[in-house]
């Protein structure tokens, strides 16, 4: 009896947190999404969402998030693989993670410096004879910086799953006639797919609603759902529409979580 009371007491902060910062905001978002710009109850926001402007925005959010995820994966998987082969793997891992401790804004501003007209990148291009290019405010710079920011989050889960892989399984594959590539395709990759999924989740989902970088690095040329939400809340003051987009984002995120949700296989 006493035990139950203390256990509930321990649970209290957790429950409070969930209610105040997870459940209440979601309910509020849902609530606001049913009011038009003048504060009348209506479904107009949902109708508006299915107009080409917003569908286009949704599509472009998906497209950029997809590109960022694929690029991150392409860089992160080999990196994580090499990391597991190094002698001081924990040290190398730490070095890769360190940049993620620095504030996102700081890193974005640093890239403005590097990619700007007077920046290091252009100085280099000039020196090799290509000449000055417009690097900042392009799709390329947007994806490049996003990938840079998300890579540690992609590497970590993949590294962990590679690290847990029993090395005798590779001997076994080799023993049964598999070449290095076949071993990778048939054994290593399928067994680290959970890490890949987890990495894709933590990259893809936040990428959907990126808005800081769209402004600072992409110069508002890239408009995603995140940008739209920000604009509606802070500029057009159409909270209802902003909330509606948020509702769709939440639905999309839940869907992605369910689809990529990993079924743990124990041995």
């Amino acid at each position, binding site marked *: 009896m006493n035990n139950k009371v203390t256990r509930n007491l321990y649970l209290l902060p957790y429950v409070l947190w969930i209610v105040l910062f997870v459940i209440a905001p979601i309910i509020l978002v849902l609530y606001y999404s049913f009011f038009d710009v003048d504060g009348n109850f209506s479904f107009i926001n949902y109708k508006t969402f299915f107009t080409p402007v917003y569908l286009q925005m949704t599509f472009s959010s998906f497209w950029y998030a997809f590109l960022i995820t694929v690029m991150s994966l392409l860089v992160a998987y080999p990196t994580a693989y090499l990391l597991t082969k190094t002698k001081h793997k924990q040290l190398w891992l730490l070095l890769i993670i360190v940049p993620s401790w620095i504030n996102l804004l700081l890193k974005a501003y640093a890239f403005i410096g590097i990619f700007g007209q007077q920046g290091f990148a252009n100085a280099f291009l000039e020196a090799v004879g290509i000449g000055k290019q417009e690097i900042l405010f392009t799709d390329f710079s947007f994806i490049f910086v996003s990938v840079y920011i998300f890579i540690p989050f992609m590497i970590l889960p993949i590294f962990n799953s590679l690290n847990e892989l029993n090395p005798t399984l590779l001997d076994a*594959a*080799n*023993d049964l006639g598999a070449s290095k590539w076949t071993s990778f395709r048939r*054994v290593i990759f*399928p067994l680290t797919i959970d890490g890949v999924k987890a990495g894709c989740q933590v990259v893809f989902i936040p990428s959907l609603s990126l808005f800081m970088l769209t402004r600072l690095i992409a110069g508002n040329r890239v408009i995603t759902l995140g940008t739209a939400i920000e604009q509606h809340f802070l500029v057009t003051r159409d909270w209802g529409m902003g909330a509606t987009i948020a509702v769709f984002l939440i639905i999309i995120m839940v869907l992605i979580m369910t689809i990529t949700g990993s079924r743990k296989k124990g041995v």
Partner: protein
Amino acid sequence: MTNTIIEFKNVTKQYDNDSPVLDHVSFEIERGKFYTLLGPSGCGKTTILRLIAGFTEASVGDIYFDGKKMNDVPANKRQVNTVFQDYALFPHLNVFENVAFGLRIKKLKESVIKQKVQEALTFVNLAGYENREIREMSGGQRQRVAIARAIVNEPEVILLDEPLSALDLKLRTEMQYELRELQRRLGITFIFVTHDQEEALAMSDEIFVLNRGKIQQSGTPIDIYDEPINRFVADFIGESNIVEGRMIEDYLVEFVGGRFECVDQGLNPNEAVEIVIRPEDLEITTKERGKLKVKVDSQLFRGVHYEISCYDEDQNEWLVHSTKKANVGDEIGLYFDPEAIHVMRFGESEADFDRRLEAYDHGDAHEQ
């Protein structure tokens, strides 16, 4: 055509500047026999297996397979398959796909794969388990899947790396019979690695006893048990009483203050030797009739026999296996036949040892 399938010529394996894991090892493995590499952990037995499988390369020396040098052939091109200590079954594949793994790499037809996998699973008594996931299988069943996965590729040699060590005692004994039977039915070479001497004695045609990167002795289980070459082998295989002694002359040896008739000859007069007497060769008798007088120190009931620990006047321990019970604290006599005494020379090479034992056989033949 010779019957040799694998040959090691002067193989050394050394990591960096550490002392070698394998030290100039040479041996031959014949087709269709059950071999056991036996030794304590770190003796190099697993390294030999990994060298044959191709997971590691020899620092010095050559490895031949069917008369062809194998040093540079990668593991995936070798005609051997391994059963790993932890089975190394692929957790993301079911039983069928685990067994089919090697066949799929060879790109065989689906119908052929299906038939071969069925055959292999039937062979290890796992027919009907095709669609099970690995995590749903027990330890003994996983073991069989691992064996099926190896034999389905029809290799010339199967390497088994302590495959029974993870099983409980009863299952382990059962699997010993099954493995031996399997090897006879398949008629291919098995090379089995273990640190368990009972396992080695029970299953093998031929045992290699290894210690510190060298083969100490090779031979049939009976040879090795009855005629160990040195203190290490005598101590490692079975229980032994080992004491120091002196060869007075042919057929007469002195130890623990007495002179005893033995069957050994051809050694130098007064040569220092070591004497082995197996506990089951010692017989409890009265003080007067015994060749040794000892005091019973402790006694354990082992089921089939009593294990009795005794001490003589010089505080040498004598272990006796007897179906008769002794009383702790009693002074008793121990009797043994001349044949029970096994004489070991210090630092004798295996070749010299074999020659000496052969001479005894000839000697016996003369007397008869």
